[in-house]
Every structure is written in C-alpha cells, then in structure tokens.
C-alpha cells in the first residue's frame, strides 16, 4: 500500500514545472530577507517565522543543484548584522540547515505535504538551536520557550511557501491542449 501511495505521489500529483532561473531564486530570497527585516515588535516578532531560513530550505530541497552554501552563508551574515548579534551565528545555522536540505532533498520530496512539515519542523528547530547554542556559549541566558515559536509557525507556513513559490513556475497553458 505504501508503495502504491509513493507511486501515486511520484507520477500523479507531481506537476511538471518550468525550469527555475537563478534570477527567480535571488528575487524570492530578497523578498524573504525583506520580510525578516520588517519592524515588528512583541508577539508578532515572537511568532514571525524565519522567512529566509524557510525559503533557503525550500530551494535546498527543490533545487539543490542551483543553490549552494554561499547564498545561505551570506544571508546569515546579513541577518547577524541586522540583529546586531554575534557575527556568524546565523551564517553557521543556515549553513548547517542547507546541508540538511541538500542531504535530505530526495527523501523529503517523496512525502506529501503533511509529512514534509514533519521534516521541516525539526530542521528549523535545529537551526534555532544552533543560534541558541552560540548565544549560550557567549554567556547569554535562554529567553524563554516562546523563542522556538517561530520554528513552529515556520513549519506551519511550509505548504503556503510551497504554493506561493510555485506560482510563477506553473506552465501558462497545458501543452496537451494544443
């Protein structure tokens, strides 16, 4: 039964998308960075998912040959400057996340949306754990359980990310119609 389900996933629901251009990757990452830079406060800030991590992870899963460690690392440095935190902690976290994404890309794309979330959540959690670990090593205290809320909301937003990022890649008209 499992086999038939997997087979269905691979052949039936997997649509054929247009090839991804590097410019499109850059634009989506830029928009994610802008969303991360939004001047939010308090609860909105605690709930805000790390959009950069989410989009980087998405492309790491779906286009592992077109995205590498360098964009992840550079965006991590940008987040460190924007946060005023120790230089390199987001860079480290995003690099490890990109490794997880590229190593798992075949496995994750086999699963349906609900099971993909179960992959995304622990990896976003691990990314935050690395940031937390660096802070801890530098002598800061853990801010509280709500610190990890953003990886929960990030995982919740995974289906939406998938939908939105695919929109420009849909084929305009069905080639079978012509």
């Amino acid at each position, binding site marked *: 039964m499992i086999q038939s389900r997997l087979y269905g996933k691979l052949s039936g629901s997997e649509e054929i998308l247009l090839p991804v251009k590097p410019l499109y990757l850059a634009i989506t990452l830029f928009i994610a960075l802008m969303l991360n830079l939004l001047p*939010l406060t308090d609860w909105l800030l605690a709930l805000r998912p790390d959009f950069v991590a989410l989009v980087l992870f998405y492309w790491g899963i779906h286009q592992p040959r077109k995205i590498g460690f360098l964009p992840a690392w550079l965006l991590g440095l940008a987040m460190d*400057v924007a946060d005023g935190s*120790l230089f*390199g902690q987001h860079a480290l976290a995003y690099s490890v996340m990109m*490794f997880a994404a*590229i*190593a798992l890309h075949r496995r994750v794309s086999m699963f349906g949306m609900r099971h993909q979330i179960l992959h995304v959540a622990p990896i976003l959690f691990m990314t935050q754990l690395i940031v937390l670990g660096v802070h801890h090593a530098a002598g800061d*205290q853990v801010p509280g359980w709500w610190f990890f809320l953003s990886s929960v909301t990030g995982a919740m937003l995974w289906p939406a990310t998938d939908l939105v990022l695919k929109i420009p890649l849909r084929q305009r008209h069905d080639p079978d119609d012509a």
Partner: protein
Amino acid sequence: MQSSPPPFFKRGPSLFARLAFFSVLSLFLLYADARFHYTEAMRKVIGVVLYPLQQLADAPGQAASRIGNFFVSQSYLQRENDRLTHENFLQAGQLQAQQATIAENRHLRQLLEMKERAEQTSTVAEILYVGRDPFSRKVVIDKGSSQGIEEGAAVVDDTGLIGQVTRALPWTAEIALISDREQVVPVQVVRNGLRAAVFGVGYDGALDLRFMPVNTDVENGDLLVTSGIDGVYPAGLPVALVSNIERNAAYPFAKITCTPAAGLNRHRQVLVMSRLAPLPEYPVAPESKKDKLKKAKKGK
C-alpha cells in the same frame, strides 16, 4: 523534480567538505567577533548594503502612520497645540531661571578653580526598529557615525535615560537599553547622594539596584539619577524610581527593584547626547617600598 546527474560526474567538493568549510568560516568569524572584535569593518560594509533594505522594509509602516496622521481630527490637534504651548511656556520660564544658574555655576566653579563642565550637544534620532534578537534589549536608530553619533554616547527621551550607543554603523546605530542584561548605570540617590549601580534584568519595566547593604538608606519612591562619575553618562539624568525593597537579614544585600524613569518602549524619537570630555587618567598607585626593593634586586 530536477534530474541529477549520476554521481560519477564531477560536481565539485563533496557536501561534507562544503559544510565543513562554511562551518569553520562561521566559527572563525564568531571567535574573531567575540574575542577580538575584528569584524567591525565587515559589519559596517554589510550594514551599508542593508540600510536601503531596512528603509524599504520600514516603508509600509511609515506610510501607514503618515496616512493615519493625515486623518487626525482638528480637535485633537487643537488640544495638543494648547498643551504644547502651555508646556513650552512653563519650560521657557524654567530655562530662564536655569540660564542664571548655569552662569552662577560657572562663576563659582571658576572661583573654586574646578574644571568647567563641557557643554553637551545632542541629536534627535528616530527609532527604526526594535532589536529582533530576543537575547538582548536593543533598538536601532536612523542616525549613525556619518551624522556624528559616537559609540558610548548616552541616549535619553523626555523623561530620562534610555540607554547607550553600543555600535555606530555609517547610517544607523544600535542602542543598548538600560534594561539590557549587560548594561550597568552608575547612579546616585537624589535624596541623600548615595552612590550605587543600576543593573538591567533583561526585560523592560524593571531594573535592579544591586549590592546595597540590608540597612542601606533607600526608600520607596526615591529618584535615582546618573552620577556622572563613570565618564560615560552625563550627571543628573533621571534613571529610575525605586519601586520595591526587600530587606532580608539572611542575605548580605537588600533586593531593590526600580522602574525606569524613561519610557523604554514607548517612544519613536530619542535624543542622542554627545560624548563627554574624557576624564583625567586614573592615578597610578605610587610604588611601595617592597616593589622598589624587588626592582633593585632585579637590576642587580
């Protein structure tokens, strides 16, 4: 799904090698930043690149508040105008009295042959955003080193001290609020001149007055102002009001909690004071006889 070539095609270094390279690079940067602060130049470059993006991300909020401002009612403006005129009138009176006091103070200081206090200039800056790092209490303002903001400068609002500039990038600057866990402000109790230090606890709305003996002369409602003896904060800025004192003889120190005098999370505009003139060097302890003897022995 993208079709990947079989692994026997050359695809550059392996995944592990790339992970190791970037991790080591990050760890190196972390170490260089935490221990030696070598990365400030790089941070400045990235800060300059990020600045237009930050402005862009801030734009929707700004536009919304501008549109909101446009639809403010006439009566509200009238009321605010009345209030400001009244305040301005009161402050003009106080200022005139203060001019006389300043002149008198300068004269007395000259008579006593004390050093003159340097005049302070200040810059109005707007808060761009509250720090996103949940580990520290920071805000970022829209003025930086190119507008004359210096690291270490004190930042105030209309009611008291807010914090200190901890990092000046070319067009923005980071301010550590006094509620930040790593901020310590030397203060004086206005009522009796007692010197103490106020520590941030990591969240807004409370500060700690630490290391005061149980029988110390501090009362509820005492105003704490900066003492100015650290050479960072100018003297006399209101910092906090004592709100709660627990004297338990079992502990060596009293537990004194204060509320900040300034609205740490209320304002959009803040005032950045200029740096104070550097204090004279800390006097070097005169050499004791023992040291002299040691030196003499070494000389031999």
